[in-house]
């Protein structure tokens, strides 16, 4: 099966995709985009969060064929060339990255939250990140990072 989809603004086609394959597998193993992480494969951990047509989803739960003709944005598509997105910068500055495995998913989820809710309350941050697990349990620093990014976003 051929899968053609727009990934980070560029149309890409891959062949010989098995129909039961996930979008995550296609991104990581066929398109060379290892940013979205493969962990639980059941939508519990959020490490594979990407945008599908502008909405954050678990790429492990999207069948590859369901992404045909759609727009996918992965964590690799958030930075502007070498310049990190403010959400990514905030994660680095706040020490919100420990082992780093959950980071790409959390960055995409936080990016989506701040695009919808520019100045989120702590409750809104917790709710928005409820589907992303950090097994280093570095949640406080992650919350700090989202707050910092929100503050910077509010002050152009």
């Amino acid at each position: 099966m051929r899968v053609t989809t727009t990934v980070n603004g560029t149309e890409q086609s891959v062949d010989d995709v098995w129909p039961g394959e996930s979008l995550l597998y296609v991104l990581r193993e066929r398109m060379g985009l290892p940013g979205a992480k493969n962990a639980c494969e059941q939508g519990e951990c959020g490490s594979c969060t990407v945008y599908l047509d502008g909405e954050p989803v678990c790429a492990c739960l999207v069948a590859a064929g369901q992404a045909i003709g759609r727009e996918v944005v992965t964590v690799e598509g958030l930075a502007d060339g070498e310049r990190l997105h403010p959400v990514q910068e905030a994660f680095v500055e706040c020490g919100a990255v420990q082992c780093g495995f959950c980071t790409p998913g959390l960055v995409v989820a936080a990016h989506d939250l701040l695009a919808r809710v520019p100045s989120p309350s702590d409750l809104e941050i917790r709710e928005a990140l409820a589907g992303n697990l950090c097994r280093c349990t570095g949640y406080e620093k992650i919350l700090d990072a989202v707050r910092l990014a929100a503050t910077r976003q509010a002050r152009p």
Partner: protein
Amino acid sequence: MDFLQPTTWAEALTLRAERPDALPIAGGTDVMVDLNFDRRRPGALLDLGRVAELREWGADDGRIRLGAGVPYARVIEDLGAQLPGLAMASRTVGSPQIRIRGTVGGNLGSASPAGDAHPPLLAAGAVVEIASAARGVRLVPAAEFYLGVKRNALEPDELIAAVLVPAAAGPQQFCKVGTRNAMVIAVSAFACALHPDRGAVGTGIGSAAPTPRRAPEAETFLAGELEAAGLWESRGELPETLAAAFGERVAAAASPIDDVRGSAAYRLHSLAVMARRAATWAWNDYRKAA
């Protein structure tokens, strides 16, 4: 494995009839887990994501017709007023990522006893709209739709088109017990709906029997007591003893098992507590609405 991707409902029904070995997939939040873990290897995936009709909802003669492909996120956003019980339950589904993809139709298709949408659908008296290319549409009340653990009333050539849910005529509540607020498969769940227009009470039990089920005796009991005490009219306080007796009757309607998520005894206890609280909250909402 084939990937079938109809773009119209008629085409979807034709493919369903031609390929009984195909597994329908909507949001993928259940189906992909089974594929990722090698639990299922269907002959084909029937992707319903391109069938636009399935993603629509509309009001029809006092009922909301919710297309099978409407995701939880839209139920929460659009239908909090008309279907408060279902919207409350939808807010407890998984995480934002899951609610954006997962659908009520998918919940019905999976027919897990723990599915969050089932208790409020039962309490509201919802009806499942099923269709096939050969026989057209048939309507099955939610209470008759669940046949066993992950088994439902669908024939091999049928698909779920929509669920018809009466718009709420009174307050509705939903409770769910789990280890945290997000990302939880219910240990036990309960929904109730007050139907003051016909002096009735609706219930739905989740995760405490082989299928989601109503508690008919508890419904009749509470509605009868409210009627006998003239409380529907007076909107007086709900006696604590009545709420507790309702809770006991709800628990008596369940037949839970011990499993990794909780014991049967805990499920019975939590059901009695949830039913007592849910009835009290719903009744207090009814009093305030006067």
